[in-house]
């Protein structure tokens, strides 16, 4: 029998283990809703600051929105919120050129709490309070300083951000525009 040049002398008896293509590891970033822009005034709907009106500073890599009160006006600090826990309004502050590159998501992540096993540990834990990163404080200040003149330029805007949203008697949520 003639052996053609094309035949391979060695043939692996086992297939190589190559991982299959899967969508599991694919990162699908959350899309920013069309109703939300940088500078949009948002109403927080749940959580500690529910009812507060805040300013949107943009979307972070995790898909969450970065918002601030500003802290100087209504005491709402720089923090992250989910888009679905927010009521966007049509009012937008002109915040072109706002720089949030210094903001790190690590600041907002809660350290995983270890369950205190003994009473002593528990007491110690209470003393070891979370300390805010100095970078957090400095960017909070810088961002507030950036926003404050834009707020001051619009009459009543400061009062508006200071006030809280609430439904009153006779108001129909489904008929309201924001």
């Amino acid at each position: 029998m003639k052996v053609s040049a094309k035949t391979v002398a060695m043939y692996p008896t086992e297939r190589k283990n190559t991982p299959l293509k899967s969508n599991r590891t694919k990162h699908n970033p959350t899309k920013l809703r069309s109703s939300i822009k940088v500078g949009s005034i948002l109403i927080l709907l749940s959580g500690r600051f529910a009812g507060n009106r805040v300013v949107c500073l943009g979307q972070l890599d995790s898909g969450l929105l970065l918002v601030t009160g500003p802290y100087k006006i209504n005491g709402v600090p720089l923090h992250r919120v989910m888009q679905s826990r927010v009521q966007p309004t049509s009012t937008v502050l002109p915040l072109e050129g706002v720089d949030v590159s210094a903001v790190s998501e690590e600041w907002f992540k809660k350290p995983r709490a270890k369950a205190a096993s003994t009473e002593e540990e528990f007491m110690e834990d209470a003393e070891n309070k979370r300390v805010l990163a100095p970078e957090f404080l400095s960017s909070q200040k810088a961002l507030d300083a950036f926003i404050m003149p834009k707020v001051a330029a619009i009459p009543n805007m400061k009062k508006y951000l200071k006030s809280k949203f609430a439904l009153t008697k006779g108001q129909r949520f489904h008929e309201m525009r924001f």
Partner: protein
Amino acid sequence: MTFTRFVEVGRLVYIDQGKFCGKVAVIYDIIDRNLVMIDGPTTGVSRSVCNVKHIVLTKHTVGIERAATSKQISAALKEEGAMEAFTTSKWGMKIAGQIRRKQLTDFERFQVKLLKQRRAQLLK
């Protein structure tokens, strides 16, 4: 007191129920005691049959013939300025105000609240 507003050809009516709710039209024909034919070529009300219960009579009329065409109606409305007369009337202004109130954004609602507070202070 006698009645002054009648279901009649040429009467401007405000529609308060159904598809054309909130719009103004003109009666151009009467079918029977319950139904009329209305048309609002300038207000977006299509030529249609309408129940008398769904309309409210205004004090304004236009001079049109029975079964007048859309063109004739819009010409008559323009000539006599009946639609403007309605929109500038107290009732028309009130309706416009209600529509505007519903369209207010959150910030505008807040400003209205401030103005109301100011008015209350001044009245005191």
